[in-house]
C-alpha cells in the first residue's frame, strides 16, 4: 500500500468544468485515483457522473481543467486519444453492433491492417487468453443480439482489455444484471484490480460501492462533495452526502392487512407480434390492501403482463377484477375500458408510455382521462382552465418541482416526471394500481417519496401490482413476491422469509424448492 501511494495517481483530474447550455454539468472537479484501486463515483441522476467520465474518455470536451494520466498531463480530444492513453470505458448503454459477432465487435476500430482476416485471427487468440485469465468466457462467434446482457457486458470489458486498457471505467454496470451476474462482475473487477488495473465504477447503488470499492467520491449537482475511503464510511453517510439531507433508505410501512381478492389471474398467456410466447400460463392473485411485487430480470414477461392488464396487449386465459371477468381480446380490452373499471397504470417506461415529453405537464395529466366531465366544458370543448388548476393542485400534493403545469414534461427531472405520472394515476382512486419500475432513473430523495405514496395507497385498502427489476425495491416495498422467469412464475415468497440470494436464483430460473 505504502509504495502505491507514493507513485503518481493513475488518473488525476484538476478543475474540470463542463456546461451544456445553461446547465453546469461539472463544476471545478478535482479527483485523484490511485493505481490498482477500485474507485467508486456515486451520485443521483443528473449529478454529473457520466458527463465527467465521458470527458475522461474524450466523448465530450471539457470547458476547462486538466487531465493527468500517470502524472503526465494528457489532452484527450477524442476517444482515440483516450484509448491510446490506456483508458477503456463500458457505457451504460452498450456500444456494440448488434448484428456483428463478438470478434468483429472487439476488432472494430483496433484492426491491424486494411484486411480483416489477420486481425480476426489475432483477436481470436488473444480473446481466448483474456477470457481464461479473467473469467470472461464468451463465444467469439456468437452474434451480440443473441447474447444475454451479462455476456454483452463481458464483450465490452474484453473490448477495453483488447485495446490494452489499464484504466477501466464502468458506467452503471449492474443496472441490467441479475444479482448473480453482478457478483460475477465484481469478481472480475477484483481480478482486474489484482492485475494492477485501475477501475472507476459509476453507480447510484450504495450496496455496490460498499462491496467492491476502495475509495469513493460523491457528486451532487455537478460538484464533487466528498472523497472518502470506503472502509471509513457507511451507506447512510453516503446517501446523506448525495442528497444533502438525511434519507430513509428502507421503506417505512406497517404489516399489510389484506382483504378480498381484487385481481385474479388464471392461466394467462401472451404471444407477442413475432409469435413468441412471452407469458406462458401464469396464475396470480392480488388482494385489497396488499402490494404484490413481481421480481425478475427485464424481458421475462413482466412487461407483457403489465401491458395486458393495462389494456394494450391481447392475451388468452382469464383475468378477473373484483370478481368480474375482463375482456382480453375484444373491443373492451383497451386502456380506456381498463381505466373505467378501476385499473390505473404507471407504465414501466415513462418516456415512451407514461408521458408525451414535448407536451406540457397539464396536457400530460389529462391523458387517459380526457373524457372526464370535470375536464370538459361540453361535448366539443375541453376545459383547459380546470385541467390546469387540477394539475397545479396535484403538483403541490406530490411535491413536483418546479410546480409549473405549463412546463414541458421533458424539462422535469426523472423523479419529478414520475411524480406527475403517479399523481395522475393514484388520484383517480383506482381499485388496482399497476406500477412498473416506479423508481427507474429516479433520485434517492424522490424514491423515498414515491414509495411512501404507494404504501399510503395500499393502506387505503387498494390492491397494487408492482413490477421492478430492482430487488431491493421489491424486498422493501412488496408484501408478497412473485418471481418471473421465461414467462413463468417461478415461485412466490414472503419478503421477510426470503433473501436476495434465493430470489436471485429464482430469477435465473433455478427453483431449489421444487427440485
Amino acid at each position: 500500500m505504502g509504495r502505491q501511494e507514493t507513485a503518481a495517481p493513475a488518473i488525476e483530474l484538476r478543475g474540470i468544468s463542463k456546461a451544456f447550455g445553461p446547465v453546469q454539468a461539472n463544476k471545478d472537479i478535482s479527483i485523484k485515483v490511485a493505481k490498482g484501486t477500485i474507485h467508486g463515483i456515486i451520485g443521483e441522476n443528473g449529478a454529473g457522473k457520466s458527463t465527467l467520465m465521458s470527458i475522461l474518455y474524450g466523448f465530450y470536451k471539457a470547458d476547462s481543467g486538466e487531465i493527468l494520466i500517470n502524472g503526465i498531463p494528457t489532452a484527450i480530444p477524442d476517444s482515440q486519444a483516450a484509448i491510446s492513453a490506456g483508458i477503456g470505458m463500458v457505457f451504460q448503454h452498450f456500444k456494440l453492433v448488434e448484428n456483428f459477432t463478438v470478434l468483429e465487435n472487439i476488432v472494430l476500430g483496433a484492426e491491424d491492417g486494411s484486411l480483416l482476416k489477420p486481425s480476426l485471427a489475432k483477436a481470436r487468440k488473444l480473446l481466448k487468453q483474456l477470457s481464461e485469465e479473467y473469467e470472461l468466457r464468451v463465444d467469439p462467434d456468437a452474434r451480440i443480439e443473441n447474447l444475454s446482457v451479462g455476456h454483452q457486458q463481458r464483450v465490452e470489458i474484453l473490448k477495453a482489455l483488447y485495446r490494452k486498457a489499464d484504466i477501466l471505467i464502468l458506467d452503471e454496470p449492474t443496472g441490467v444484471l441479475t444479482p448473480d451476474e453482478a457478483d460475477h462482475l465484481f469478481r472480475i473487477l477484483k481480478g482486474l484490480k489484482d492485475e494492477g488495473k485501475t477501475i472507476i465504477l459509476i453507480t447510484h447503488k450504495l450496496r455496490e460501492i460498499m462491496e467492491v470499492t476502495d475509495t469513493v467520491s460523491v457528486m451532487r449537482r455537478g460538484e464533487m462533495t466528498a472523497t472518502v475511503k470506503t472502509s471509513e464510511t457507511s451507506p447512510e453517510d453516503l446517501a446523506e452526502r448525495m442528497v444533502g439531507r438525511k434519507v430513509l433508505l428502507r421503506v417505512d410501512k406497517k404489516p399489510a392487512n389484506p382483504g378480498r381478492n381484487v385481481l385474479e389471474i388464471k392461466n394467462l398467456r401472451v404471444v407477442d407480434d413475432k409469435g413468441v410466447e412471452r407469458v406462458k400460463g401464469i396464475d396470480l392473485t392480488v388482494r385489497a390492501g396488499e402490494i404484490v411485487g413481481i421480481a425478475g430480470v427485464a424481458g421475462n414477461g413482466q412487461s407483457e403482463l403489465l401491458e395486458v392488464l393495462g389494456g394494450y396487449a391481447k392475451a388468452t386465459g382469464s383475468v378477473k377484477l373484483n370478481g368480474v371477468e375482463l375482456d382480453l381480446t375484444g373491443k373492451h380490452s383497451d386502456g380506456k375500458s381498463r381505466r373505467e373499471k378501476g385499473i390505473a397504470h404507471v407504465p414501466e417506461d415513462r418516456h415512451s408510455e407514461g408521458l408525451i415529453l414535448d407536451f406540457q405537464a397539464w396536457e400530460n395529466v389529462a391523458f387517459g382521462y380526457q373524457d372526464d366531465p370535470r375536464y370538459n366544458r361540453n361535448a366539443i370543448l375541453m376545459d383547459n382552465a380546470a385541467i390546469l388548476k387540477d394539475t397545479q393542485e396535484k403538483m403541490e400534493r406530490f411535491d413536483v418541482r418546479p410546480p409549473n403545469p405549463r412546463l414541458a414534461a421533458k424539462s422535469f427531472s426523472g423523479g419529478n416526471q414520475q411524480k406527475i405520472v403517479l399523481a395522475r394515476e393514484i388520484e383517480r382512486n383506482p381499485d388496482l394500481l399497476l406500477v412498473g419500475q416506479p423508481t427507474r432513473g429516479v433520485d434517492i430523495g424522490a424514491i423515498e417519496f414515491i414509495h411512501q405514496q404507494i404504501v399510503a395507497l395500499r393502506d387505503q385498502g387498494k390492491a397494487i401490482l408492482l413490477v421492478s427489476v430492482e430487488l431491493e425495491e421489491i424486498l422493501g416495498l412488496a408484501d408478497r413476491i412473485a418471481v418471473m422467469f421465461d414467462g413463468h412464475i417461478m415461485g412466490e415468497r414472503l419478503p421477510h422469509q426470503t433473501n436476495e440470494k434465493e430470489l436471485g436464483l429464482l430469477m435465473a430460473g433455478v427453483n431449489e424448492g421444487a427440485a
Partner: protein
Amino acid sequence: MDFLTIIQILDSTVRLATPLLLACLAGLFSERSGVFDIGLEGKMLAAAFLSAAVAAVTGNAWLGLCAGIFASVLMALLHGLASITFRGDQLISGVAINFLAAGLTVVIGQSWFALGGRTPSLIGGGRFPDITLPFADALAEVPVIGQIYSELISGHSILVYVAMAAVPLTWWVLYRTRFGLRLRAVGENPGAVDTAGISVVRLRYTAVIICGVLCGIAGSYLSTGLAAGFVKDMTAGRGFIALAALIFAKWRPWQALGACLLFGLLEAIGNRYQNIDILGATLPVQFMQALPYMLTVVILPGFVGKAIPPRAGGEAYVKER
C-alpha cells in the same frame, strides 16, 4: 420463342440491368453507412447530362465519364453536407437533389446546346463502343455455348463489365476489409464506431462519395453507352427501381445483382413485347413497367421476408445528451 430470341432478351436484360446495378450498389454503400439516399435518381440524371455534354463537345467518352462522375459526386457531397454535417432530414435532401437535377440538366442543356434540353447525338468516340471479347466471332457458330458467349457475354460496352465486376468487389470490400467492417458498423450503431475512436463523419462522407462515383458511372452509361446522348428525364425512375432492388436484396451485393437482373429482365420483356397476351387477356405495357414496384411491395413481405434496413439508417449521428 426460339433460342436466339431468348438470347437477345437476355442480352438486353444485361444492358438494362447495368445502370440499375451500379445505382443499387451506390445506394448500398451509402445506406450501409447509415445515410439513406433517395437521390440516386438525381445523381444519375446529373451524371447522364454532364457526361453526354462533355462527350459531345470533346468527342471522348472517357472524358464524358469523368465529367459524369464529377457531377454525381458533387450532388453526393451536397447530400452529405445536408445530412451528415448539418444533420438535416435525409429524405428531404434526397428529394431536393432529384428536383435540382431534373431542373438543372434541362436549363443548362438548353443554354449550352439550344436543342430543347437535349445534348447533340453522340457519334464515334463520344460513345463507349461495344467490346468484342476474344474468340467471340470464332465461337459464334458453335451451338448454345458459342452463341451464349458471343451474343450474351461478349459485345457490351466496358461499363457493363465494370458493373458486373463491382459486385464481387463490393462484397469483398464489405466483408473482408477493415473499411467494410467499419462501414457496416457505422450504419448499425454509430455510437460503437465513435467510442472505438473512429470518426463517424469521415466514414459516412467516404461512403457518400463512393455512392456518388457509382451513380456517376451509372448515369454516364445511360447517355454514352445505352443511348447516344442525353434526353430530358432519361433516367425515367431507374434510381427508384435501384432503391427497390436494394431493399429486395436486403442491402447485400450478390442479392443486388439478382434483383437488378430480374428488374432488367422485366424491362427487357416490356420493351420487346409492347402488349403481352396471356390467356386471352392483354397485359398493357404499363403493367410491365409497374412490375418492379409491385414485386417490391407484394413479394418482398410475403416471400422474401422482412427487409431490415441498417439500424441507424436515416438518422444523423448526435452524441447523446
